[in-house]
């Protein structure tokens, strides 16, 4: 809240001088980030767009009807949402207590365990997945929903442990001592003080996990295909089998919606500093 009042007072002074490097930088970023997105978005609403013209010859919603009319798209969407929710919930249930333990307890092998979460990301993941897949084959998990859940859990562990650890470590011990001092038991201190203080960073980690899982492809393809079909897998089949660009474009826009909603949601909880604080900055 102090931030907004600060920028409000600073704004009139800044507007007198035009910040050319800033404008240039913003323009460059917009070009690199927004133009590809814009092209995809335009394609999604296009019926005819032939080479020399800059804008499509004919706009229309024909391909939206065609894409959204397909049963496999809808079942893939519900599979993806269900998968991402399940994985995020499980990951939270496993990782948050672990993160608190890493942040606050001192047990033998603490650092080695902590680093082991990083090693998953230190090697080519596909190799790991193939190894896991052979084990899953023996366990009869290949081609099942829970098989995909398990393999997707692997890649969420790092964010869900490292960010909350930094968040828990960032909570000032004096805040907890002050709560003990006014009569809160250690359990209440955790729920009323420590957790709320660490919450912005934890929410950031949960959102990253949900979005990451929603778009995860390799594991889902290796373990799930062809029975468990997620949105990214449907999109790959579209791109591979159909020459029509619009199917892919429509799906891209559809896939972009959940992460957009989550980001809007996240803005309520996260100031620009929150994620940085969670990452230990």
């Amino acid at each position, binding site marked *: 809240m102090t931030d907004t009042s600060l920028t409000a007072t600073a704004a009139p002074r800044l507007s007198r001088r035009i910040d050319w490097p800033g404008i240039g930088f913003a323009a460059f970023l917009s070009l690199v980030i927004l133009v590809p997105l814009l092209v995809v978005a335009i394609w999604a609403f296009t019926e005819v767009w032939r080479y020399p013209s800059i804008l499509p010859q004919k706009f229309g919603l024909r391909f939206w009807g065609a894409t959204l009319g397909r049963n496999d798209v809808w079942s893939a969407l519900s599979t993806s949402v269900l998968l991402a929710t399940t994985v995020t919930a499980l990951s939270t249930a496993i990782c948050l207590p672990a993160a608190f333990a890493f942040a606050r307890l001192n047990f033998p092998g603490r650092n080695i365990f902590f680093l082991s979460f990083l090693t998953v990301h230190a090697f080519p993941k596909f190799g790991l997945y193939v190894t896991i897949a052979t084990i899953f084959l023996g366990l009869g998990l290949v081609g099942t929903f829970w098989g995909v859940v398990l393999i997707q859990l692997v890649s969420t562990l790092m964010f869900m442990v490292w960010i909350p650890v930094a968040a828990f470590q960032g909570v000032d011990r004096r805040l907890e001592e002050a709560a003990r001092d006014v*009569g809160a038991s250690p359990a*209440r201190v955790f729920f009323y003080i420590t957790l709320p203080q660490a919450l912005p960073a934890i929410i950031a980690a949960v959102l990253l996990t949900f979005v990451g899982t929603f778009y995860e492809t390799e594991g889902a393809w290796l373990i799930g295909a062809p029975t468990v079909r997620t949105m990214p897998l449907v999109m790959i089949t579209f791109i591979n089998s159909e020459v029509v660009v619009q199917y892919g474009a429509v799906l891209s826009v559809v896939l972009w919606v959940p992460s957009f909603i989550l980001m809007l949601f996240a803005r309520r909880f996260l100031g620009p500093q929150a994620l940085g604080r969670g990452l230990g900055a």
Partner: protein
Amino acid sequence: MAKLELRQLSKQFSTTLAVDDVSLTVDDGELVCLLGPSGSGKSTVLRMIGGFELPTAGAVLIDGQDVTRVPPEKRPTGMVFQSHALWSHMTVFGNIAFGLRLRRLPADEIRQRVEAVLELVGLGGYGKRQPNQLSGGQQQRVALARSLVLEPKILLLDEPFASLDQHLRERLREEVRDIQQRVGITTLFVTHGQDEALALADRIVVMRDGKVEQVDRPEVVYREPRTPFVAGFIGQMNLVDGDIRNGRIEAAGMSVATPLADGRAILAVRPEFLELGSATAADAPVAHRVIDYGTHLMVDITVKDNAERLKAMAPANSGWKAGDRLTLRPREVAVYREGVVAHRAVVTPESSPAPVESAHV
């Protein structure tokens, strides 16, 4: 209301003895300052009373009840931290009400008590604010209110004003003293600022390296420091090594009669008790620098080619300048031997010594 008693408290952190055999009794309604340099163990003593550290040895008693092993949430103590430690995810009201809510008091009573305590600390109507919308001084007052609202038997303040600027510190210090006397709460105050201790305390506990050096009323600690450390830590003090021979101690160009036996000793003179006169001798002490504080001059003196440095306080109109040659006439002195005071004397202007008190330890 409440009496606090520390019995031979000690605390060992791995290899260092942070607190070494500290005993102290604080009477009901008394405000006692723990004063010492950083690392003297004063905060550790406070944290053991609050229940945040477990003593290695000794006991903490509140109203005769042993609370040494009672966790902080069950102790009748309230602590105000140096960093104020307000919970940034709650409003000012929420911060103060938290302890009352844990006690499951009715909402009406909580509101009344929070509003009353906000009035008490001069923040009436600030309940809806977020802690980070307040200034440093206001935040510290909220922290004080958060402790006071629970009506603890013992109030513990851990350098609560250390992060505030000088003016605010002085104002809050007086307010705290006011509130403490109005509420009549037994209070322990940790500080490393001697002026804070002198201004606030009923009694001062001077600590050094985990040990208690002296416990006394402020004026006694200042006028009759028991050890050279206390003498040098509270106020300014000239402490010079000297030699006692034939009933006189000679140190840095000063000579004072003393009944002590011959041998090494430390002569202590406050700057305000070191009277200056003009001298002509080539080897006389020299004014090295003179600082005009308006109300008085502070004269830095070098004796015997820089071997000793002394400070003397002179009247504002005395007109001493750097380079003046001086005679030194101490008016009140103390002689320390083996770390404790051995002899104290007021020297009459005719320079015939008149012992006031003589203590052999």
